[in-house]
């Protein structure tokens, strides 16, 4: 036996895993080989040291339980699969059921699940409540199938003397400029039968009385709303131009659109806001009208503000704005009257005390239709320049 084979068999020799014949061969080799014998002795000493390690006894408190389990074999593991306690098999079913609920609960309480649930809830609420249709679309959707009463179904006017001149179907704008109480009835049948806006207008008209209504009425709903108003109202209905106009209404993606001029008519036909009772409200109304580009309303609101007796400084500013609006509207005479009444020094010296002298002539020359104002005394400019209250001067100058 060579040393390599002997070294391979040393472990088997020390742990008694060699048969007797093979062990005798190894021992014979060890007797004649110092190196292999030394290796065997080292191995033996290490084993002797390792054998000095006393094995700790297993805890005894669990021994009876384990013995009982071994005898009955009725055991169950915990839900997680990791055995942490020994429980009877009857209890195991309950634990398993509780574990199922616990798993479902843990899954439901996970942060990701909660976030997904909240996201779905938000999306659902958004789909439910967010308006996906614009107001125009909602109006035009309802007008896609206008219900129109043919003219033949309507009762002809019994008394020609009480009938106003029949409205022309080609002149809706004229009817739209009618008094506001008459506006729903004066607008054509399409407008009366197509939109909530028109419904609201109809309600306003009904509240004002039937005798004021005039003009054609083609919408069936409008006719039904006014059915209780008497035959005298229906006698005023003379013609129904709606079908032709409805057929001519433009459409986009199958949805009929209201022409811009009719929209404007409907807006103008709406009852106006109550007249402002304070000069500030009137001024605000004028400014809003100016922002809309409604020059007439702007002028009217400024005039209303001036009539409500604003403070001198504000009166001056309002007069300037009114003056400018009148010039823009080409009403130079009225602008001159406003200027003479409010913007001259004789008219209101206190308001002009802080005004920059070049401001008024500059605006007036820009308008081109107003005479330049009288030159201001030269002594006023140095006096105001020496004044330290620059801010108050600037605030009082409207331009």
């Amino acid at each position, binding site marked *: 036996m060579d040393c390599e084979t002997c070294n*391979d068999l040393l*472990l*088997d020799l020390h*742990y008694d*895993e060699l048969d007797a014949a093979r062990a005798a061969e190894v021992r014979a080799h060890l007797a004649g080989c110092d190196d292999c014998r030394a290796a065997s*002795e*080292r*191995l*033996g*000493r*290490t*084993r*002797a*040291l*390792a*054998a*000095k*390690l*006393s*094995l*700790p*006894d*297993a*805890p005894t408190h*669990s*021994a009876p*339980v*384990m*013995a009982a*389990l*071994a005898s009955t*074999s009725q*055991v169950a*593991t915990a839900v997680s699969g*990791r*055995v*942490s306690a*020994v429980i009877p098999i009857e209890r195991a079913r309950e634990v398993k059921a509780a574990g199922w609920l616990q798993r479902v609960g843990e899954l439901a309480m996970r942060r990701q699940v909660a976030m997904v649930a909240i996201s779905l809830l938000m999306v659902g609420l958004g789909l439910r409540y967010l308006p996906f249709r614009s107001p125009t679309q909602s109006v035009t959707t309802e007008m896609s199938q206008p219900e129109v009463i043919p003219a033949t179904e309507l009762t002809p006017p019994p008394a020609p003397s009480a009938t106003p001149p029949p409205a022309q179907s080609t002149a809706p704008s004229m009817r739209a400029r009618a008094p506001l109480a008459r506006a729903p009835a004066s607008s054509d049948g399409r407008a009366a039968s197509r939109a909530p806006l028109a419904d609201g207008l109809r309600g306003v008209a009904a509240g004002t009385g039937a005798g004021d209504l005039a003009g054609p009425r083609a919408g069936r709903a409008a006719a039904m709303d006014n059915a209780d108003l008497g035959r005298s109202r229906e006698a005023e209905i003379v013609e129904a131009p709606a079908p032709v106009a409805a057929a001519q209404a433009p459409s986009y993606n199958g949805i009929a659109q209201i022409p811009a001029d009719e929209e404007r008519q409907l807006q103008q036909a709406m009852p106006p806001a109550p007249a402002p009772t304070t000069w500030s409200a009137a001024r605000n109304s004028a400014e809003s009208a100016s922002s809309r580009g409604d020059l007439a309303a702007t002028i009217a609101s400024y005039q209303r503000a001036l009539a409500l007796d604003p403070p001198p400084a504000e009166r001056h500013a309002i007069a300037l704005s009114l003056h400018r609006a009148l010039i823009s509207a080409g009403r130079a005479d009225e602008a001159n009257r406003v200027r003479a009444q409010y913007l001259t020094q004789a008219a209101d010296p206190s308001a002009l005390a802080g005004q920059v002298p070049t401001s008024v002539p500059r605006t007036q020359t820009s308008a081109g239709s107003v005479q330049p104002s009288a030159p201001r005394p030269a002594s006023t400019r140095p006096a105001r320049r020496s004044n330290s209250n620059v801010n108050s001067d600037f605030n009082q100058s409207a331009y």
Partner: protein
Amino acid sequence: MRRHRTPIFHFILRSVKNPATADEILQDAWLRMIQGAREFQRASRFTTWAYTVARNLCIDHARKAVHRRHPSLDQPREEEGATLGDSIAANDAGADRNAIGHQLQRSLVVAIESLPNDQREVFVMREYSNLSFKEIADVVGAPENTVKSRMRYALERLQSSLVEYEDYARTLG
């Protein structure tokens, strides 16, 4: 099972290095054995099967304990080499009966637990559980020659770790 309880507990203890955890895993292994009694193949020895179950549980515990940082009573300290359990006074009267033997016990625990896992499990099963190399090969799922190589490496490491007890070992021999 009573016959294997202490060797398996020692095998588990040397792996998890905590008596309480070792006891818990021992009970777990025992329950697994009872539950899997029907699956037990009578072709193999019960000892091999029991150690396989215990070893698998030790591996599972090691995987779960990767993030656990609590110190073990048997875990050696950084500088001294002694375990935390050594600093606790023993209750038995013969604990300090032999100073060398007591120190050797500590050194052996340190040396064995410092072995690589594959070498330590082979050494413990062979040296203290008296499993044959073939049975150990069945438990660890490795060839018998591989097991012998691991055992040889383990003994060499232990010999180098316990070189200070060389003279003491000669007296034992």
